[in-house]
């Protein structure tokens, strides 16, 4: 007896409708020639690029600047975040030293504090840093990157440690016997083996910084220093209706590259998502 599959497709299609409605709506808003929320329907009524050209020429929203700021801030933060995270993970996974367990627990504990509340302390700290080193003060990309790196030895370290634990210890042991230093083992043996996981963790960090509006909103108040999230939120926060097309066009240009990367890395994602579960 052959099992019927049509009901599986029915469920799948229903899920697709649910998943895709907001995204199709966003596309149709971006292509909507009128550019307001009230005139946008689910399916595109026209195909005009007027929202895109408005986006690039609106002096109140220097979109290209925001895009570059976002790439710089999120890119640099994500790369350093992974590097610091995996160094810590390596030490916790492969080296034995005093305070190892306490260190792991401590990292976990600090992460559990809702750290937006320390916004004031961070803000005051960066006012004083900016007084001495203006390049790292408020309204600078470097300052925000520093704050983001404060969390580098955090969840990622745990996640990556879980992954490094699954790499057989014989591999680095034999390298050590051949006379490799710890630094060489780390760079020449462990990093290449952990590359898929590093890519996934880097992507997750990048996206979490991309979505971050709280610190970025407080630190970057100058229009030309803003990130995409802060800038685009500003476009619709006051008035949902009038600048909607511009918001949608800007969102699409910001979101599509991320979506493509996710699709490209799809097979690594599952591994990355469940790695935390492999070893706690």
């Amino acid at each position, binding site marked *: 007896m052959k099992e019927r599959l049509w009901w599986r497709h029915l469920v799948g299609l229903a899920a697709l409708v649910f998943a895709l409605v907001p995204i199709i709506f966003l596309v149709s808003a971006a292509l909507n020639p009128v550019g307001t929320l009230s005139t946008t329907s689910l399916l595109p009524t026209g195909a005009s690029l007027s929202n895109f050209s408005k986006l690039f020429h609106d002096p109140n929203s220097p979109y290209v600047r925001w895009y570059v700021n976002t790439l710089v801030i999120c890119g640099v933060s994500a790369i350093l975040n992974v590097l610091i995270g995996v160094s810590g993970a390596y030490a916790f996974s492969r080296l034995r030293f005093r305070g190892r367990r306490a260190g792991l627990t401590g990292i976990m504990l600090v992460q559990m504090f809702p750290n937006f509340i320390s916004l004031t302390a961070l803000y005051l700290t960066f006012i004083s840093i900016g007084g001495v080193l203006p390049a790292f003060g408020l309204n600078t990309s470097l300052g925000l990157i520093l704050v983001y790196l404060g969390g580098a030895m955090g969840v990622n370290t745990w996640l990556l440690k879980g992954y490094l634990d699954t790499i057989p210890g014989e591999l680095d042991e034999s390298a050590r016997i051949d006379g490799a230093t710890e630094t060489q083992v780390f760079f020449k043996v462990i990093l290449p083996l952990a590359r898929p996981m590093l890519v996934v963790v880097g992507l997750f960090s990048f996206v979490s910084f991309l979505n971050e509006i709280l610190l970025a909103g407080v630190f970057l108040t100058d229009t030309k220093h803003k990130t995409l999230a802060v800038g685009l939120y500003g476009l619709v926060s006051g008035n*949902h209706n009038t600048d909607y097309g511009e918001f949608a066009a800007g969102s699409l240009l910001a979101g599509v590259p991320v979506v493509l990367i996710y699709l490209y890395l799809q097979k690594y994602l599952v591994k990355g998502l469940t790695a935390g579960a492999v070893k706690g």
Partner: protein
Amino acid sequence: MTAPPYERVARLSWPRVVFVGLVAAFAVFTIPTLVDKHSWTGVTISVAVTAILAYVYLTPKRIAARFLVPGTILLLAFQVYPVAYTISTAFTNYGDGHRLTQSQAVAQIEADSVMEQPGAQRYELSVATKSVDTSGAFVFFLTDPDGKVERGDASGVTPVPDAQVTKDPFTGKVIKAAGWHILTGIQVNGLGQRLAAFAVPTQGGFIKSVGLSEAYVGQFTMKYDAAAHTMTDTRTNTVYKESDGAFRAADGSGKTLPIGWKIGVGFKNFTSVLTNAAIRGPFLRVLIWTIAFAVLSVLTTFALGLLLAVVMDHPRMRGRKLYSSLLLLPYAMPAFITTLVWSSMYNKDFGLLNKLFGTHIDWLGSPWAARGSVLLTNLWLGFPYMFLVCAGLLQAVPQELKEVARVDGASAFRVFRSVTMPTVLIGAMPLLIASFGYNFNNFNLIRLLTDGGPYPSGSSTAGDTDILISYTYRLAFGGQGAQYGLASAISFLIFVLVGLITYGGFRQTRQLEEVYAR
């Protein structure tokens, strides 16, 4: 493998030397500025950081530290220190009206109370600095009606001989002074608050600026008596006494001066969450919704994700790749964008949902509709993640076990319940706990979708969809009457709650594993 000492020295590789060199160069570059600004904390920190890095990277012993120190320094500076500072403010009344120290508050009240006496003389005013820009200290050049010039700073006035200054022939205003830069009107205007707060003490009272080019002698109308700890309003003769970090009127009228100062209040912020009815009511309401929201979010996303994973998990199912690519989209699209899109789809007048269904529902305007909308959006944002996870875990279910159960005559549902579910649950449990913790503090969703609203009548701090973290955010940074101390105390409670729940959850998982791993 102990290498002889000379070999260890030989292993001092150049990247490490360069790194330490760069750090040291940076310190050498910044320390003069720090000394210049009298920032001794800054000097201490940069010397200490450089010394630690040099020790760790240039000596052979500290191998583990080499991998841990950079991250740890950043962690201490930008997470541990701010958190510690915050916890310490939880024991104070810090917030609007209580931001200063007591002596600052007294000085501020007195300076604000300087009033011009009727008929008092006015000066022509020029503002001057030692350096070219306006960031440093400034002084007043004052020309009295007789043409005599005095220079005034925070310590008092000194006469200036006419030979050292050039005066405007008509007004007598100083336009040049030897050794000083006279600021332009635009620069003076740019001083803003600093100029308004500046007062030059003199015998009769204080000289303050009025406009950009005039000054007057004013008198205090508030006088502080340090011995009696009282502040007296000399116009009305009202006496204010120190009490709980503020000056309160001694006549029992309940009047309090708006500027107070920061004092320690012990555990008051913590106990008031339970004892003060005005805080307890909203707090408990928000707490219950936070837990319900987090639990329901985890359950709904997991249920939908698992359902889809099971549906797709069939060897002859065609288009599985396409399905999972498309179902990934809600997860791959940056959440700040899609949350804002949902928020506009819920819009009562222009939103897509009302247009599609031909309804006129105020999705985000009534309490239960808004809560439902929040959950629906979070389901949309979260189910692809659970789908991916469950699809991965389903691969790990031993096929032989399923076969055996089926041969033994178990129904498809029975196989699912007794074979598939336990395997999936064990794998997913830590992620479900993590997801609970994440949603418990899902600030972005609430902030971007409803901003806590709608608000019940009579409450402007705790909305119907507020979760603890968005409620606390409003307490700390909300427009009116920020209560930073209270917000810090509640943050601490959130920390304890999430910690306990996570800990309990992980213990439960371990027990679960033991049960199934027999």
